[in-house]
């Protein structure tokens, strides 16, 4: 038995060695570190390979880990590009000196200024709006107005939102700090905590399911999760998705909070030119449309059409706060969450 095992191990060892010989040195390739885990992305990469002959190597992990990895690898890092699912991490990568400027007219013309870095170190690929969804039966949308208004005691026991460890909550609070100031933001976070229907748990989808179950009336979630719920194969999920409507807050002032999934060229990118070509490809109308349709994200390219479902929710005014701000204020947002004990939920009465 042991012999048999050893033989198998030996063969596998040989096989793994054979696998790893760097034979394709001459081939054109780029290496991508990405936090996006979508199958549709893979299809887009394959298409890029087909069209340009440039092979795309993909390393998927959390952005924090990828940033650590790039930092540790230093100038020997094989990474050409870093993709994250929020602006904060790109700002962090930039401040750690892990990215470099990418000069490209195409990118400057396609992507609106507030969705990219001032030094062109990173660019938005898709937008996600953090919106309020409400129970169609129990809530009159006339009662909704802004994120700030959620602090009103009339919502006591009604608000569903996930824990503060979530980056999208952190970004939202960062945007409120940027707009209303530190003290007001802290007061807001404290009041919303007291208005929660339960202590924060689960993911964005679970908040919507809790509305269907009658645990609360409002949830703060990202738009694409709702898109996926509505189109889910699971009847419970689609029922939850259809039980709520979307409300875009702050339409009369600064606009709804948006974050991006974005990309930057690595400081020590071995294949800078091809990397830029790749970014240009990702913001082309066709690819942008795929992002929107497959994953219910809003395209950053204004001329790309959006998914039908997204269009059915209507156009909205977005907060044009430079996303760099979100990164800069992220830590402050986390500290604020801790100070108001967000994760403990409303005080027991």
């Amino acid at each position: 038995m042991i012999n048999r095992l050893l033989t198998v191990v030996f063969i596998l060892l040989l096989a793994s060695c054979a696998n790893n010989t760097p034979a394709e040195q001459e081939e054109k390739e780029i290496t991508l570190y990405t936090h996006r885990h979508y199958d549709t992305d893979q299809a887009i990469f394959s298409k890029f390979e087909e069209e340009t002959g440039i092979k795309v190597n993909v390393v998927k992990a959390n952005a924090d880990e990828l940033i650590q990895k790039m930092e540790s690898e230093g100038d020997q890092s094989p990474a050409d590009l870093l993709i994250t699912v929020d602006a904060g991490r790109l700002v962090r990568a930039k401040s750690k000196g892990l990215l470099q400027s990418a000069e490209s007219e195409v990118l400057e013309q396609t992507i609106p200024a507030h969705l990219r870095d001032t030094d062109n170190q990173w660019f938005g690929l898709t937008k996600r709006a953090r919106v309020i969804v409400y129970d169609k039966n129990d809530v009159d949308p006339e009662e909704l107005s802004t994120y700030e208004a959620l602090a009103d005691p009339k919502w006591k026991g009604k608000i569903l939102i996930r824990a503060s460890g979530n980056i999208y909550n952190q970004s939202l609070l960062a945007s409120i700090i940027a707009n209303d100031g530190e003290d007001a933001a802290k007061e807001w976070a404290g009041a919303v905590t007291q208005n929660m229907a339960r202590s924060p748990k689960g993911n964005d989808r679970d908040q919507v399911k809790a509305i269907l179950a009658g645990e609360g009336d409002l949830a703060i979630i990202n738009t694409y999760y709702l898109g996926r719920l509505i189109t889910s194969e699971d009847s419970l999920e689609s029922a939850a998705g259809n039980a709520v409507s979307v409300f875009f807050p702050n339409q009369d002032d600064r606009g709804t909070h948006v974050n991006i999934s974005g990309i930057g060229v690595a400081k020590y990118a071995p294949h800078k030119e091809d990397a830029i070509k790749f970014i240009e490809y990702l913001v082309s109308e066709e690819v942008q449309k795929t992002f929107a349709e497959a994953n219910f994200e809003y395209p950053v390219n204004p001329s790309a059409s959006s998914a039908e479902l997204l269009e059915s929710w209507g156009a909205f005014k977005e907060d044009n706060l430079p996303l760099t701000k979100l990164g800069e204020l992220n830590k402050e947002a986390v500290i604020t969450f801790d100070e108001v004990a967000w994760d403990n939920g409303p005080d027991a009465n």
Partner: protein
Amino acid sequence: MAIGLFIAIPVLAIIVYLFYGTGEMWQHITTYFLWDYLKNSLLLLVGTGILTFLFGTSAAWIVCTYEFRFRRIIEWLLFLPLAIPSYIAAYAYVGLLGNGGSLMALLQSVGIPIQKIEMMNIWGLIWVLSCSLFPYVYSCARAVFKSFPTNIRETSYLLGASNRKYFFSVVLPMATPAIIGGLFLVFMEVLNDYGAAKYYGINTFTTGIFRTWTALEDLQSAVYLSALLVLMVFLINGLLILWRGKRSFTLRLSQSSASQAKRKPLPLGKQGLYLGIVAIPLVFGLILPITQLIYWAYLTFESMFTLQLFWIAAQSFGVALIAAACVVVAAIAITYFSSWNHLKGIHLFKKVAVIGYVIPGAIIGIGIIRSSQTIIDFFADALYLKIGFLFYGSSVILIYAYVFRFLAVAFNPLEANSLKLGKYLSESSYLLGIGKLKTLLTVELPLLRNTLLSAFLLVFIDILKELPLTLILKPYNLQTLAVKAYEYADDERVSEAALPALVLIGVISLLMIVLNFGDKQLLPTKASDEKHVSH
């Protein structure tokens, strides 16, 4: 010694960090969350400790003592809950028992008006973790119960002990070292859990480490928190050793041909009770979550079932097999080198080497990348050799990381059982002029075969499920099932994660079948136990 040093590299890298002092957020951490997190972690440890002990020990005793229908199948099905990553089980439980969950819907359809059972709190987390981790205790207890010589039982009965008395005053105390070994593994897993705790909104030490590192951007304090965690582990370890006390028995393996006790039929009248005891962990740890996974996999089958899935499964299998073999060899080496050479430092190394199991994987990953960078730089500067590809283009570094991470899983039961084995056999062998290595290979290891196999299996399963290290250190052409499942779950597409998770469970069952059933010789029979002793 060299092995110990080699294995301790990441720990040394982390120790270096400690000299830089706490980070700027330390004050904030101690003010706002440290005590809360500590309290939650302790509660989790106590809760899962009690439950896994009850589940694991009782089930192991029943399958080892009694004969009943489907006993053989149940015996190995009881290992399988380990194959389900706990965060996947956590999702599955919410899918079953949450609002409109599938089990709730089923109950409602038969007229039981139940809306939901709230799982997303600390009690739910204790339940889920216990249900998926009890096999650690089960497998350790089972390995001991299986090798229990009959003469002890016969003696107890001759002396008039009842069944119950025999279990509580003879069997349990003798099995304690092994069970403690299993509990230790459970505790480490609980402390290291990230996904399930995060999903249920429970802040634990480990979620705190990640929060400090990623959200508060203070790696320095995160490493300090890890160090505290390691301290806590030493404390637990110390307590367990105290509990174990002097209970390191030397079991004299029976010389008679009846060394392996025959199973008795279930006592009449208590069949229901005994089967119920075995069924509880089986139903809640395996059948319920798997049913939910199958339902999800069914919903997403069309888009998820691809040929690529098989290729991914094969890759996971290969890497885990190699790495698990390396872990077992390293564990043997450390156990025996330390007992051969009474070097002063070696005991320290033993301790250092096994703490890899408790440091959060992501932190180990960083430690390893940092230290391997130093090595790469050294080769580049001093020897003009570019060896970076070895680190980033192959699985070498990943396998090394696994060895570091999972050494404790193999080492703890191995050490416990080699203590139990005692020295008299090896000493007789030395007296006969047989060398140490030969004695190890021909006497000690064959006797420890059950332990080695179950250690191998546990490590193998752990590696297949492992996430943070795999994510950070894997070469980009390597895909594993756990990573695949994680990518979907992380993206809130749990139903898509179900199929890769099921394949993972399938791969693990396959290996268990090969190891346990394909080879009759591996089933502990009296003949094979006897053979080596009579050399």
